């Protein structure tokens, strides 16, 4: 019943070593998962780690072995907003995509890019032609064969859905050719992030016939894919029901025939349902309840690494005080980040010195910290022309307990350096409208990476035209130049060096200060095993079993 973090990571790292031969991330301890045929040494290691890690269960492999429930009940606070992979990019949608519409490649529990529907691939010398060798006999969940038209349709949708924020990832694609065994993608120019793009949910394989049947839109419906599961029913604001895909490429998987994502808005009710056994696993447990919940019988709290960050967005257009870099630096010195992490995260997170998450590739580990120094902050403010401090309106998203905490703590901390913070809560739609018009002085920004590449966030931060520097009105020509170079640099070492420079500039200029990088916690019944959440937020459900 202790936090299983280290044990889970251990089992998972061993699994990672098996990943090269294709398959998901938890080792089948006793029987062979037919697709994985690797070295027995690795397998015995896996078995040993598994028995160590697991508390009571042993029949992890056999799907129909007696004594297992036939449905995984997963409770979350909200429904997915939209299951159209080009549009629905909220948390509750993105976590589900991997189970229903996987693509050529995927991310495993370690954040490594590994095969999914494609077994292997090569890139041409000039980096423009990517040839993917598909697993033989791929079928959609309704039994229809996967053809090259479906791949073309999916990439075309990803590229040409006009309202989609994600279309920039499919932009480089010039053509998709091939046959039922091979997909050959040609891109316009060399791109170091292209493979990472292919792990994204908007690149998932969707059945064209199904889309046409729905009338050429996913409105009121959902996509059909070749994943471990497929959606059978969606009762809005109540539940989403999934069934196992009988044609899934991995024999014997998924191990549990049904999944039900229950929507339960109230944190306390969700926890009660878990304790009472009405559900098997839940997400979004408040950090403050983690200790109490973990201590309860039959329930454990598991921590998963995440790239999730919260930022202070200082808009210098709305509040001129923020235009002076000394003021921004003073505010950093006047913020006790450790206190924030202790009081808000209860230990489930860490400080980040960059706008990039410490968990993301290319995070600059040698950036200096801003030390908490009240006197120094006041002195710096005086130097900048604010000896008596100044006033700030901090606009928070209404109804979000974490944001309210951050607001209250910052208000208290900054009062000591003479900065008077006035908190105003606003409902999210109004907030985003005003933020977009650059009328809000200070808000909390959020970001979670969806792929293992630093370009995703960097590109967003530096896209001044679209979002005015993440709504701060900050920009840097130097950073833009460095980024343009990095986007073409195929050598990893050189590329990360460029990103390091970008991060240094952003750090010194306090472009987008990070409050913290938070992990995610999931509470599950001890009877449930095999659940994995990747650092980029995909759920891997095919290994999950729930003992009776």
């Amino acid at each position, binding site marked *: 019943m202790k936090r299983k973090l280290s044990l889970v990571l251990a089992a998972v790292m061993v699994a990672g070593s098996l990943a090269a031969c294709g398959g998901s991330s938890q080792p089948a301890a006793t029987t062979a998962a037919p697709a994985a045929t690797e070295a027995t040494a690795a397998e015995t290691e896996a078995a040993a780690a598994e028995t160590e890690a697991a508390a009571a269960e042993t029949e992890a492999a056999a799907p129909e072995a007696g004594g297992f429930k036939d449905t995984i009940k997963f409770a979350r606070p909200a429904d997915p907003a939209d299951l159209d992979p080009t549009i629905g990019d909220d948390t509750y949608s993105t976590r589900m995509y991997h189970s229903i519409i996987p693509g050529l490649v995927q991310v495993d529990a370690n954040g490594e890019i590994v095969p999914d529907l494609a077994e292997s691939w090569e890139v041409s010398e000039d980096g423009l032609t990517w040839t993917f060798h598909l697993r033989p006999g791929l079928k959609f969940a309704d039994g229809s064969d996967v053809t090259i038209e479906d791949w073309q349709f999916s990439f075309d949708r990803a590229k040409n859905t006009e309202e989609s924020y994600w279309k920039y990832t499919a932009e480089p694609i010039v053509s998709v050719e091939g046959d039922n065994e091979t997909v050959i993608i040609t891109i316009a120019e060399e791109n170091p992030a292209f493979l990472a793009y292919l792990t994204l949910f908007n690149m998932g394989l969707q059945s064209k016939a199904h889309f046409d049947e729905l009338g050429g839109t996913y409105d009121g419906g959902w996509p059909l894919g070749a994943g471990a599961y497929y959606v059978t029913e969606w009762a809005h604001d109540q539940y989403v029901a999934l069934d196992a895909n009988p044609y899934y490429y991995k024999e014997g998987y998924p191990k549990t025939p049904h999944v039900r994502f229950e929507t339960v808005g109230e944190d306390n009710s969700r*926890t009660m349902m878990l304790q009472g056994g009405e559900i098997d696993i839940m997400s979004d447990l408040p950090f403050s309840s983690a200790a109490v919940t973990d201590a309860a019988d039959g329930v454990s709290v598991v921590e998963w690494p995440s790239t999730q960050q919260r930022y202070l967005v200082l808009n210098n257009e709305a509040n001129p005080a923020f235009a002076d870099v000394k003021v921004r630096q003073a505010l950093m010195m006047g913020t006790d980040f450790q206190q924030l992490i202790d009081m808000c995260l209860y230990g489930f997170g860490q400080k980040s010195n960059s706008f990039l998450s410490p968990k993301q590739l290319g995070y600059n580990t040698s950036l200096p910290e801003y030390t908490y120094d009240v006197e120094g902050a006041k002195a710096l403010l005086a130097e900048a022309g604010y000896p008596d401090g100044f006033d700030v309106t901090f606009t928070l*998203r*209404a109804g979000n307990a974490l944001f309210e905490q951050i607001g*209250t*703590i910052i208000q208290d901390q900054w009062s000591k350096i003479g900065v008077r913070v006035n908190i105003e*809560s606003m409902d999210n739609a109004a907030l985003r409208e005003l933020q977009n018009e650059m009328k809000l002085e200070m808000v909390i920004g959020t970001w979670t990476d969806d792929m293992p590449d630093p370009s995703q966030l960097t590109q967003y931060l530096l896209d001044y035209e679209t979002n005015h520097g993440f709504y701060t009105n900050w920009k840097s020509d130097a950073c833009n130049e460095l980024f343009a170079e990095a986007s073409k640099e195929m050598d990893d070492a050189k590329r990360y060096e460029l990103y390091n420079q970008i991060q240094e500039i952003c750090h010194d200029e306090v472009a987008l200060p990070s409050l913290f990088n938070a992990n995610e916690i999931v509470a599950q019944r001890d009877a449930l095993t095999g659940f994995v959440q990747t650092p980029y937020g995909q759920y891997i459900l095919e290994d999950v079993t729930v003992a009776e």
Partner: protein
Amino acid sequence: MAKNLSAKKIPFYKRVNLTLWIGVAIVAVFVLMAIIPSLFTHYDPDALDPTAMLQAPSAAHWFGTDNYGRDIYARCVYATKIDLVIGVFAMLVPMIMGTALGLLSGYYGGKLDMIIMRIFDIFMAFPYMVLAIAIVAITGAGLKALFFSIWLVGWKEYTRLIRSEVLVVKQSEYVQAAKVLGYSDARIILFTILPNVFSSSLVYAASDIVMCMMSSASLSYLGLGVQPPTSEWGAIMSGGKTFFAQASWISIFPGIFLILAGLGFSLVGDGLSDMIRTKKR
């Protein structure tokens, strides 16, 4: 003075009773707490204390602490001022307005009644949430939004209550008699009808004070009520929901303050209505 034809002849000032005194005493304590909170606690209600988060009630912290380590008893004491203001002023305007509309609507009937009642229907058609969020969008979250939304919504009960009683009372003998005697409408309404129906308003008003404070809790529940770090009983209670499992005291104790304040006001309301009540019908 009112010529109430069958009232018992006890002079007004002698009708003051024990219920009223106890109620006034309780309210007085709260008023004192509102004016001089430091008399009741030495803690600063807004002081964060990371070393004392979520502590159960103890000798040091009578009501325990919240997730910021703030003393809850102190927060409740300092919240008294805002809550009294909310309770009384948010209630007064609808009470006066609603009673007046109910009197007019019930007494005159006809077109006036129809128009007032149909306007009433339109207001009722808008669920509180829609109005509250729309108002917040205009005035911003906080006290102003709270007052406006309650004022817009709270007059309905008084209007209906008073109107329905007026419909009965206006058929009674002494109202008929007063008409025959040629008293003006205003005199009849204010001196004959109002005293007989007002006790309903009073009784409801006492509940309404508590309900207004609870409206603050509903707005805070959505994050649109009083803003941090302001302490207010309803806001403290709704904030305690997240910690219900491990720190249930956060939500309980402000409730006790609310109940006691509500008790004080309701005794005052009952006492006053005993004084006004006369034999009738």
